[in-house]
């Protein structure tokens, strides 16, 4: 008993110190004049956020936060800083108006939290509405609903799963990870929207940063006397250690990306995280071996096709399920008799395809954005 209270106390202190560190980091980021330090601190902030999400038992979100927030976005911000400059400009206008806007917004947000249920409250709407049915459908061990039960979610996606003759998909989606099931099946429309948002972001970046064809193809010579290379990504010729180690590590990063992609149905992971991890291997290659070498490995034409291909796979899965007589993104009609034991069935097959589409799009978009930013010349 005494040990239990001690553990509770220790957990509480870990919570408090993590949240305090988050607040400290945020304040430091705001007060920083050096943008390099600010970018590094935002990376630390993301990592602390990931730790906090892990404490809240949300490994999937923690995974995404660590990969996207602490990993890729830090690299992208640093690449941008290499183009622009590393110190903040002196502010000339009065800070009064921004301060008022921030204070009012912050106060509104704090006021909004007053209505939110307490942490861990079992009567919170998220635990009462829909989620018990999702859980019962996904995790067989807590399966309590009767077989005629149909999930009445807002999209009606799995509502006619009970019509299927196969008992495997009658009540469940056939994947072990509830988060993946909710993300890709019950909330398939939302995830399709997110994927399209990422697709749109890549299009926007390409339109803005790749408009000038001459800039893209121009690779200036690195001058020996300047301390900063005019081109942010000239190959690191003299960094033997970086080259050897990145060669050693890149295969494992790719392998881990594939694992996160395809094991996401059973454990923490999925298309978003896997795409980012997969892209980070190519970005590491580009950082160490220079942009021309990376462009040879991943030709921009191919990557641009892959951006669209991922969204196409996702939406195409929905169209196929419509053609087979179901609703858009209703995977239960993907039930088949081809290669039983090799291809998964119904819901599981749909989730696998959709996650693959997400993974391809995210990886291609991350690589494209990195190339687009890193391929620019430094603004003098």
């Amino acid at each position, binding site marked *: 008993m005494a040990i239990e209270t001690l553990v509770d106390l220790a957990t509480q202190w870990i919570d408090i110190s993590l949240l305090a560190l988050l607040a400290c980091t945020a304040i430091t980021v705001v007060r920083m004049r050096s943008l390099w330090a600010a970018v590094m601190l935002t990376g630390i902030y993301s990592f602390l956020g990931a730790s906090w999400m892990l404490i809240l038992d949300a490994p999937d979100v923690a995974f995404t936060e660590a990969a996207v927030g602490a990993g890729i976005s830090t690299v992208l911000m640093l690449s941008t800083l290499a183009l622009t400059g590393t110190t903040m400009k002196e502010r000339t206008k009065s800070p009064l108006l921004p301060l008022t806007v921030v204070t009012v917004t912050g106060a509104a947000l704090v006021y909004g939290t007053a209505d939110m249920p307490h942490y861990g409250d079992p009567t919170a709407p998220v635990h009462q509405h829909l989620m018990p049915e999702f859980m019962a459908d996904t995790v067989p061990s807590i399966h309590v609903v009767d077989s005629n039960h149909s999930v009445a979610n807002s999209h009606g996606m799995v509502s006619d799963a009970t019509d299927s003759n196969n008992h495997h998909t009658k009540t469940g989606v056939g994947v072990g990870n509830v988060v993946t099931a909710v993300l890709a099946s019950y909330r398939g429309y939302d995830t399709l929207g997110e994927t399209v948002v990422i697709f749109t972001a890549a299009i926007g970046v390409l339109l803005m940063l790749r408009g000038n064809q001459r800039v893209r193809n121009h690779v200036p010579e690195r001058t020996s006397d300047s*301390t900063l290379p005019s081109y942010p990504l000239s190959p690191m010729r003299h*960094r033997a*250690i*970086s080259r050897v*180690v990145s060669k*050693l*590590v890149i295969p*494992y990063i790719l392998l881990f990306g594939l694992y996160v992609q395809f094991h996401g149905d059973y454990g923490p992971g999925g298309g978003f995280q896997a795409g980012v991890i997969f892209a980070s291997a190519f970005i590491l290659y580009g950082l160490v071996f220079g942009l021309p070498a990376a462009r040879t490995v991943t030709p921009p034409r191919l990557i641009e096709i892959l951006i669209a291909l991922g969204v196409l796979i996702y939406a195409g899965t929905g169209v196929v399920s419509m053609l087979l007589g179901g609703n858009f993104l209703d995977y239960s009609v993907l039930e088949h008799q081809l290669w039983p034991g090799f291809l998964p069935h119904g819901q599981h097959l749909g989730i696998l395809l959709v996650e693959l589409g997400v993974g391809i799009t995210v990886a291609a978009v991350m690589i494209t954005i990195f190339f687009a930013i890193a391929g620019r010349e430094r603004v003098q």
Partner: protein
Amino acid sequence: MSLLVDVISGACIVAGSFFAVVGGIGILRLPDFYSRLHGGGITDTMGAGLILVGLMFHAGLTLVTVKLVMILFLLFVTSPTSCHALASSALAHGVRPLDPRRRDGH
């Protein structure tokens, strides 16, 4: 036997935490960039390494230990590399190591 394993595991974790704290103090207190890097290196190698070894004793011969060995391998490869990258980039950008033979420290 299980008590022995628990003691070894606990000792490793405590020692690892100690090294992590020492590394943190080092980063704050050491005089120049390169010696601070040493503090960071201690946290990465000795601190995290010993904590992982302690967790391995705790997990026994299971899949968890295999995963911990992989993490340890990755850490031992990446953290010296990042230290090296930091040091060489600092040198390239003109950060001079502190020279104790000089009175002014530079």
